[in-house]
């Protein structure tokens, strides 16, 4: 697929070219949205807004090669906006919802949720993005607008923190006897 060609066409107002760009990137848009928002309906709202904004602003994109990370930055901004809007509702909902039992969801999933909640939110987000198959350190550097070495340093720190929290959780689970 000729991404640069489609970006140039889309910048001239060609909707079919823009549609091809979105179709190519729709999965990663969703996966990135899902790192910030838990609810799929919110993800759909964020992606919808991101598509509309991307179409409005695509003329401002100077380098067609950066389309994907530029688009993902728009998705992240929309998700952060929705996350902020929903924050109060989510807090109430979380208090009212029954606690999820580890038997229903698997130990690893629950432990991972606890691990990510224990990390500073920016480290949790970075780790989630980094583990999406189609996102490289170079992509992260473009998304965060930082040098690749800075991203590597952030990742190393986040992984060390994650490892130590995980080990603490493992030890706790073992001691409390809830783990086989």
């Amino acid at each position: 697929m000729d991404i640069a060609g489609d970006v140039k066409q889309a910048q001239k107002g060609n909707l079919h070219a823009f549609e091809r760009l979105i179709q190519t990137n729709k999965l990663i848009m969703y996966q990135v949205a899902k790192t910030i928002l838990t609810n799929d309906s919110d993800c759909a709202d964020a992606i919808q807004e991101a598509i509309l904004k991307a179409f409005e602003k695509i003329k401002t994109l100077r380098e067609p090669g950066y389309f994907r990370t530029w688009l993902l930055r728009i998705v992240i901004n929309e998700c952060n906006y929705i996350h902020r809007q929903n924050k109060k509702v989510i807090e109430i909902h979380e208090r009212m919802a029954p606690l999820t039992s580890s038997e229903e969801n698997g130990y690893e999933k629950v432990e991972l949720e606890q691990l990510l909640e224990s990390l500073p939110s920016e480290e949790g987000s970075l780790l989630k993005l980094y583990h999406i198959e189609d996102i490289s350190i170079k992509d992260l550097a473009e998304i965060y607008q930082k040098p690749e070495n800075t991203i590597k340093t952030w990742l190393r720190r986040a992984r060390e923190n994650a490892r130590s929290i995980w080990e603490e959780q493992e030890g706790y689970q073992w001691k409390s006897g809830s783990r086989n």
Partner: protein
Amino acid sequence: MEKWEQELIKQVNTPLPEHVDQRIHLTLNHLKQNHKKPTKLRYIAAAAAASLAISLGLSAVNPNFAEAMRSLPLIGSVFELVGHDGLKRGSQLRLAAEIGQEVQIGEQRVTLTESLYDGSSIHLGLVIHPPIDENEPTSIVNDIVFTIDHKRPSNLGYGFSMEKLKDGTFAGTLSIDVEERLPDQFLLSLLSSDETKTYAEIPIERQGGYQSFTIDETRVWNAIEVNYESITLFPTSTQLALLFRNTSSPFWEIQVSDDRGRRLRPTGGRGSSHKESGSYTYSFEPLETIPKQLTIKPYFSSIDTSNKTRAVWKGVPVTLSQGMAGSVTVLDQELVNNSLTITYEIAGEGVFEQARHIWLEDSKDIPIHSDRPPIRIQGTDSYQLTFSNISNTDSISICTPQINIHYLQDLEVTVDLKS
């Protein structure tokens, strides 16, 4: 790799859920009909429908109007030249009022030719003179602020339909929608974006009658509540007003058909939402007579371009399957001055959706898309779609995807109009 990382990889690399995919598809579809999305009020512009016939002039001609119109490279009404079916009808019913005013908007010279307001949208006819940014002939509107009786409406949306004429001039219609109810007479002003300069002041008066039918029926699907409020028959459009709850946007399309099974062509929509509720008005082509019943069916459609059907034109009609939605029969193709026009007839569930999804492919399977919407041949389910920059038709295939229509039957409602 550590266990938590393996779990994280599993968690973040999830497939795209179907309903999110459908929202993406619907957004792209809506975008195809949109030229601008204002902050709150979403407005879907009417699809462009050009007419080859230029008929009927305006009924009364004043000297300024005549002078302005003399400078134009067209004869007759812009509404009838480039307007959608409703505007053509409104113009033919002589509901349009002349403007004939030439204005300078930034670097661009524009002639405002006519206006039409029948209680639904405010329509303006205009001609944009060269030199013009051909990639974005509608960009002039970015520098315009609209006021009604000298006040800025709280929510305003607009859409364009634009055609390029032979001499490089663009003729178009600008349709403006405001959320609040408008008086029968008002002054529409076009100001510069900093509001220091007045480009034009246009007295508008509502013309023609309309008939409104209360529906007040509520339907529920997946906890989403839809209250159909009313359907109003204007001379230029049929408008369905509804309220929705428990969803942030009305992400479905709506099919309206009469008791004889004739489907109304959708021409746009507008609405606003706040958190998990909102209101929306869907516009369709006008009805010439009042039917006994109208059936309203919300639906999703999914387009599978990877599973396409294709055919090469060999001088006889050929039918291509469009999946569950129906089929398209190619009736003719004509190559004139490097423009290839395909004439085709649609049969099936999603006529208007089906008509839009036609493209060409060359001998290397490179897709060639049209840069304009299909034009319906009035009174039929046949359309014409033109592709530019085609030098010859050797090895050119006509392609269409598989289209699946998913009706939301729980949201369906039938309205008696003659009871």
